[in-house]
């Protein structure tokens, strides 16, 4: 009767497509020949892609954004991996404190975080340093990264680690050789989260980036202030394509399912 074959989630497919409509519209506006953002486009041109690639602001902002996002991911991982270990394997009394601490930035609106951070950074004289910006980005990306890592770590049987110890590995070695490889996809996902949150952030960057050092989202935002041509659409299209490639590569590596934890299957 075929009911046991793969069944397609009709609602999920429809809704996902609906969510993608804005992106499709953005891509479509990027090819409008006129110097304005219009949908549906009046014609077809790739000129705006040339403009986007050749605009020096976009180039330098893109590089800056990538650099900051990479640094934020690395710093974030260095901070979140030990935290996740402490939450899953640490002392009971400490756990709720650490996990509460990691959730706080998540439930506070970005703009308020930015406001507080700016007041503080001004006080300590670091208002326009890259360090403040990077740490700000880590702050907002960190909660989800911790959650992904905690989910993965609690899925790793501690007995396996202990088995490694009975086989002569030190606790640290056992963790690095046995547990870490097991949560590698989750580490990848956490890094992606940190990267995305940094790369796409507007609020924190708006308040914390140093003058003359605007990240790509801010530059695109500012570009729209003075120009109504589709260059920003073209730049966004390039980003969409790039992220699709990254996402496909990630899913090939098996990291994507860890974005949401991997499903367990019925054993029968």
């Amino acid at each position, binding site marked *: 009767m075929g009911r046991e074959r*793969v069944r*397609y*989630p009709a609602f*999920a*497919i429809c*809704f*996902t497509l609906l*969510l*993608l409509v*804005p*992106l499709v*519209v*953005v891509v479509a506006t990027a090819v409008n020949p006129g110097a304005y*953002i219009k*949908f549906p486009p009046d014609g077809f041109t790739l000129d705006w892609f040339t403009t986007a690639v050749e605009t020096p602001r976009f180039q330098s902002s893109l590089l800056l954004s990538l650099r900051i996002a990479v640094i934020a991911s690395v710093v974030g991982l260095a*901070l*979140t991996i*030990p*935290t996740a*270990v*402490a939450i899953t*394997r*640490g*002392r*009971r009394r400490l756990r709720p*404190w*650490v996990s509460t601490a*990691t959730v*706080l*930035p*998540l*439930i*506070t*609106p970005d*703009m*308020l*975080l930015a*406001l*507080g*951070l700016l*007041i*503080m950074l001004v006080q300590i004289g670091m208002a326009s340093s890259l360090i403040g910006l990077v740490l*700000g980005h*880590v702050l907002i990306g*960190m909660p989800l990264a911790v959650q992904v890592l905690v989910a993965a770590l609690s899925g790793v049987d*501690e007995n396996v680690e202990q088995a490694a110890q009975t086989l002569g590995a030190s606790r640290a070695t056992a963790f690095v050789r046995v547990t870490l490889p097991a949560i590698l996809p989750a580490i990848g996902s956490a890094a992606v989260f940190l990267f*995305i949150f940094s*790369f796409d952030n*507007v*609020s924190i960057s708006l308040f914390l980036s140093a003058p003359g050092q605007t990240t790509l*989202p801010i530059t695109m935002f500012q570009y729209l202030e003075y120009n109504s041509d589709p260059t920003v*659409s073209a730049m966004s299209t390039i*980003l969409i394509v790039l992220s699709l490639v990254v996402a496909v590569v990630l*899913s090939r590596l098996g990291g*994507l*399912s860890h974005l949401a*934890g991997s*499903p*367990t299957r*019925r054993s029968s």
Partner: protein
Amino acid sequence: MTRARSPEDDTTLGRRGSWLLGGPMLVFVVAMFGYPAYLVLRTSVASGDGLESGGFSLTHYVTFFSDSLYLDALLNTFVIAVVSTAITAVLGLLYAYEITRRPGLRTVLLLLLVLPLLVNGVVRIYGLQLGMISLDRLLLDAGLRDTPLGLQYSFAGIIIALVMFQFPFMALAIYAGLSRLDVSLVEAAQTLGAPRRAVLLRVVLPLAVPGLVAGSVLTFAAAAGTFIIPAMMGGGRVNTIPQMIYTSVSQTSQWATASAFAVVLVAILAVSILYSLRRGLRSTAGTR
């Protein structure tokens, strides 16, 4: 089957190890969140409106609560947050349940779900607005409607945008919980005479609650704190607190006023979240 964890596994990391690993995050959060939060609180009760005016005064709060402009903005903010969270939660639950039960295309769907997160919010709002305009034109041309739907520049538009922006987080949070759902629970309920709706309501929903609560808190905070979405989707027609904060700081440099707005907003957020968390936890006392 879930087996209660024995207390022995508390010893995996010693006291020193626990502090060594968990400590840096505590320091980080205190330094990057706690202290700034204190500064905002302190600034909000300063007697002047400058950054380091010092003194103590509740003037800024009095201003806030005695002006209908701000109270209306607060109400708007709250209504927007509640409605968009409720809609996102229902849609997220249906979505997560469906891809849990029907795994076809699951990886692709999750991938496409994350994709919009990578695109600048301003640009996505443009896309959404132009999409809405096209929809309006389609409906008008097809003669299905005489007037535009009025989705833009209204509460409806803000809520639609918020739902679309927050949906991926909600769906992923719920899916994370539901993907661990033991299918035999659904089957057990069926063998005990539960029709589809009862299975969803009595078995699946309670299991989805932790993810639902997490996703809702996230959505609620984001919806109450967003500046760009009401600013663009509201077309300046819907005042919200974040817009007031932005204007206070950016144009008039009224630090204390902005801080007071922020404190009020966070206080309301915290109370709402704690309240719903307590209710949520009570109803799911059984889940891990």
